[in-house]
């Protein structure tokens, strides 16, 4: 399909039009940072955002989500609750797109998760080409997630006055046809876009001191590495690193009832392997007792376990966990430290 051009002036009207039929979610300012939130005013959209506090996974797996409702009493009944709205998700960066592809695998393999997948199916993704690193903490180039090659319906590249729009799916093409005021790209615009894309790599530093493909085998050797003890000293076990990670999807499920104890809801909440009680079982046994062991588990999931399961690394190099950690723990430095000491 051919490349389209969307003038920047046409963005607000496009969003306005979309808002009539969809929940439109996009990056907006939140204090000094940014967050993906439903757009109430097109002027609030900030496609120039650096990164968001939480990744867009919350659109597909909300922080708190109803899985079922039930009645109590003599003959209790359960109803599945699937909370989904037609949504357009605007402005996803490539790293987050890679992460989403991984979540898709996690939620569809073996036992497909209807809650996640329904939202996924009802959401159109309009991603955005990263031409510059979002900030100093990201290392997408090293993790091979700098390019958005699949998973989007539409993909935008900033040409200055306008966006070049790549069409990824038929649904994307339909959306554009129905709501967008676009035209075909000229040859000049097409080559400008190609040029931007091919030359951008020089702006991105390769911050991992080795090939990311080495990670699974490197971490295999690093199970008893002293680095975990160092993290033991510094980590708070606050779970921020996993909550902000676009590929973390662990959860807890709890029942909530009304005061009359006649009905209730089963709610899924985000959970974190960093929290002390995550792996504790009845009787008090905790299979990941120390903060260091829990940090090791996080590193292993990012660099090894998810790869073994899904064929893609669990870290996309977005840098969020590094930015957010109150103790300035950096997974990137961690990988580099381990590698330097072992190989």
């Amino acid at each position, binding site marked *: 399909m051919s490349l389209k051009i969307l003038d920047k002036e046409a963005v607000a009207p496009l969003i306005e039009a979309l808002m009539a039929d969809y929940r439109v979610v996009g990056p907006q300012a939140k204090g000094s940072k940014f967050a993906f939130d439903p757009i109430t005013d097109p002027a609030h959209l900030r496609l120039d955002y650096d990164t968001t506090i939480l990744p867009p996974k919350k659109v597909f797996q909300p922080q708190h989500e109803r899985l079922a409702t039930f009645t109590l009493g003599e003959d*209790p009944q359960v109803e599945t609750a699937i909370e989904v709205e037609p949504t357009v998700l605007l402005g996803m960066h490539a790293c987050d797109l890679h992460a989403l592809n991984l979540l898709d695998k996690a939620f569809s393999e073996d036992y497909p998760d209807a809650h996640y997948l329904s939202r996924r199916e009802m959401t159109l993704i309009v991603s955005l080409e990263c031409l510059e690193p979002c900030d100093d903490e990201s290392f997408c180039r090293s993790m091979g997630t700098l390019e958005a090659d699949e998973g989007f319906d539409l993909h935008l590249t900033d040409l200055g006055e306008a966006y070049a729009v790549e069409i990824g799916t038929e649904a994307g093409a339909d959306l554009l046809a129905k709501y967008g005021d676009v035209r075909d790209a000229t040859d000049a615009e097409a080559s400008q876009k190609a040029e931007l894309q091919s030359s951008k790599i020089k702006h991105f530093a390769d911050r991992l001191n080795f090939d990311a493909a080495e990670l699974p085998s490197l971490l295999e050797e690093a199970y008893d590495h002293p680095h975990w003890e160092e993290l033991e000293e510094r980590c708070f076990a606050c779970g921020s690193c996993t909550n902000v990670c676009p590929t973390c999807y662990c959860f807890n499920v709890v029942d909530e009832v009304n005061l009359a104890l006649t009905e209730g809801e089963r709610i899924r909440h985000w959970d974190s392997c960093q929290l002390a009680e995550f792996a504790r079982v009845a009787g008090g046994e905790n299979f990941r007792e120390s903060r260091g062991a829990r940090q090791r588990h996080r590193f292993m999931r990012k660099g090894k376990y998810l790869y073994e399961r899904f064929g893609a690394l669990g870290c996309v190099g977005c840098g969020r966990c590094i930015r957010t950690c109150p103790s300035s723990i950096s997974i990137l430095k961690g990988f580099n430290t381990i590698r330097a000491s072992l190989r």
Partner: protein
Amino acid sequence: MSTSIYKPEMARLGNVQQMTATEKLFRIELPKGQSLGHDPGQFVMLSVLGVGEAPISITSSPSRSNGDFELCVRKVGDVTGALHAMQPGDRLGIRGPFGVGFPMDSMRGKDVLFAPGGLGLAPLRSLINQVLDERDEFERVIILYGARRRSELLFRDELNEWVERDDVECLLTVDCEDEGEEWQPEERLECNIGVITTLFPEIEVDAKNTIAITCGPPIMYHFVLMEMLDKGIPESNIYLSLERRMKCGVGKCGHCQINSLYCCQDGPVFNYADIKGFEEAL
């Protein structure tokens, strides 16, 4: 895309039997006489609506199912506490069966050694009874069972039956006798005093031809594994059933992860050779 893997089937609680001070045996009937269709070693996610869900091993064996199944549950917290307060006829939610059960096929034609400790008998009972119902398929059947006290021995009638049977070698032990508890002679099972490992010297095994299976609290299976290995049983002939926190049962929630493995999907029954290197497993 509207059936949720998290939606429990509402089942009916049948007979409830108090087994010890803290354990009860629950018979559960699925609607419309459906059968659970499980393998020994698998588990269900049991819901008490309003309280929550917990993974529980199916303790009855498929060979003895009349459409219903049994769970043996210790009261330790919210869900198990609420279950213990329920009456026959009450409704509870069931999802499953989930997980990988015991390797019946690789056990056929071999000697089998079962060494459960305490509540670890619950999942193993499903397998033991299945084996006994197909007794001809197996060579020797050895059961070594230990509990902390005599009053904590589970399934006493069946233990008695196994002790009595000529084609089963069943030895029992308790860590120590209950204080001030008098037992009627007919209830009084023949028991060794001491931890479960004290039973191992009592038996001879044909190590290479034996499949050994254990389940119990971590401190117990640690030592049991050492005994099994001491007897020369090959690592790949040893299986254990593990317990982890679980919130979904279907490999998503992450709680039960043991290094790279998910206890709910890759287990709960594991081959020792596959997990012996995993610090988080043992």
